[in-house]
């Protein structure tokens, strides 16, 4: 699904440049649940941004579902993001003047899905995250865990190839974190490919594979015994 070869990325900081990713080789197969771990500054967010086409690599190959991602202009990147990727952010990033359902329907709007169909799908995904009866509520009326579940529903609504989650539990307490991870595991059980960036080991162990990043290189790439989050809920 994801195929990365010799990926480099550096940022210019004034006169010096900061080499963040120093040759990443990495691949993800369909249906995997991968945790990317590392301390801050290890380059995990940069990697995720490049995977999410929010940022571009300096050199190296990136294939997503056998499509080469290179030299994208903004419009093309937007279309690919819309078609291939779903995003879950640490701070949820729901649009605060839209109801839960409207938020979930937003990527479908950009896919030019008809209005009725959008609502139907949005409700379907809200139901999947257990928030159907909260469909008409604004984000300000939801708890942190609920917000993140709405965000996950939004990411899923577009039926992406890959779900990218950047510290999805970073702003949540552990109980809610496990609930969110339980949801992510369920989505993965349905065969969806998911990448989770985290620095919490317990969250990482709820994935099927952990990639350890350190100073811009992959230090360790291991398959782990998945811990079911439902055990803690």
């Amino acid at each position: 699904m994801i195929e990365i070869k010799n990926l480099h990325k550096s940022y210019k900081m004034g006169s010096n440049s900061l080499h963040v990713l120093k040759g990443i080789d990495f691949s993800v197969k369909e249906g995997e649940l991968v945790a990317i771990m590392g301390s801050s500054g290890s380059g995990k967010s940069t990697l995720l941004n490049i995977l999410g086409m929010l940022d571009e690599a300096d050199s190296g190959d990136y294939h997503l579902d056998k499509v080469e991602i290179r030299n994208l202009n903004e419009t093309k990147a937007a279309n690919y993001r819309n078609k291939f990727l779903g995003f879950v952010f640490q701070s949820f990033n729901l649009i605060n003047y839209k109801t839960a359902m409207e938020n979930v329907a937003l990527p479908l709007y950009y896919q030019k899905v008809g209005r009725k169909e959008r609502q139907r799908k949005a409700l379907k995904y809200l139901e999947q995250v257990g928030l159907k009866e909260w469909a008409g509520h604004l984000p300000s009326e939801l708890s942190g865990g609920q917000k993140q579940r709405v965000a996950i529903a939004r990411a899923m609504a577009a039926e992406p190839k890959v779900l990218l989650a950047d510290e999805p539990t970073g702003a949540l307490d552990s109980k809610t974190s496990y609930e969110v991870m339980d949801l992510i595991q369920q989505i993965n059980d349905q065969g969806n490919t998911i990448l989770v960036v985290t620095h919490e080991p317990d969250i990482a162990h709820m994935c099927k594979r952990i990639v350890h990043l350190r100073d811009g290189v992959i230090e360790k790439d291991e398959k782990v015994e998945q811990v079911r989050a439902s055990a803690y809920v």
Partner: protein
Amino acid sequence: MRFIFDRDTWQEIFGSIRKNKLRTVITVVGVVWGIFIYIALSGSAKGLDNGFEREFETVAMNSMFAWAQSTSIPYEGFKTGRSLQLKLDDARILQNRIPEIQYIAPRNAKGVFGGSGGANVVRGQKTGSYSIYGDFPVFTKIATKKIYDGGRFINDEDIKYGRKVCVIGERTQKELFEKDENPIGGYIRVDDIYFQVVGVHKFVPGGGFESDSDIFIPFTTYKKLYNTGENVDWFSIAAFADADVIQVEEDVKAVLKSNHRVHPDDERAFGSFNLGEIFNRIMGFSKGMTFLSLIVGIATIIAGVVGIGNILLISVKERTKELGVRRALGATPREVRGQIILESVFLTFIAGFIGIIFGSFVLAIINSFTQNGDGIPYTNPTVPLVYIGGAVALMVILGTLIGLIPAQRAVSIKPIDALREE
């Protein structure tokens, strides 16, 4: 185009407008104010324009007076300071020599320009002193005289037979006749001669030296009554509508000078007063007002629209994160740009609409206050549809252009920067 008529597009726009109610209201107020000023000003200017036109409707706009004075340059053996006297014959010569003259009315008057006061007018026990004018019927072509029901002005027969008939003013009627008495057919004594009243004229202000007590009698009768022979006090002249009145004025004086053997350079020999020139000056003033109101109005609209751009710019900054999320979810730069421009145009449009309604409302109020008010030259303040259409078009264009700035700003922020946590 599909983008503009898409219900979802509008839902997005309404959503973001509804979210920022205060911001929207403040933005809109700027443009409402601009278009309101524009409508109110140009409507008022038009009202003033109409008002002036109404004031002058009784007088031929391109009319003038000419009268004789005395020479200031010796010529052909005549010494300086010779008094000149216009004659009836001058009218015929002027008419023949200057084709631009449409009407020429020789006039005599007593009790107008100083000298011997007005005529003694007596009716029974009532007396008064009034100005007497000797006139030809053609005078009404130059300055319309409104005659009350049942009456008439002097006609050609009156002139031909030198009839002793007169047209009196409103005040004359009030002072010489009882309230419920019909003055038409009644007799008054003017300087010891009996005259039959044939009409009462309505006084219209703005004509210059005339008043509501003037008595008009046939020119030929005046001649006999005051023994003036062929003498004429002054000519009232109306030029054709397309003629240059100033040039006609020059020509009239030149003809009179040659006719009366006056030095061609003698500026003081004949006096003249040009209503057309005065009128042009006043119309020029009201045109200037219209122009000024247009400039001020448009400037205010521009200021308002710039305000919209300014506030949208701030709002784009406020919504950086939201726009970043939208783009992460697959909004293309084109869609983001389109949304912000449309938001700007929509706000401008709505604001303009409210401003137009508000402005027309105020114009209607001003109109109802000044409708019967005499003295204020203000009638029927309207704004031509072309002006309104132009203003709306201007607003839409400006709204689009000014929306481009925040839209470009919104697009230039990379989604990754927009989504940075801090």
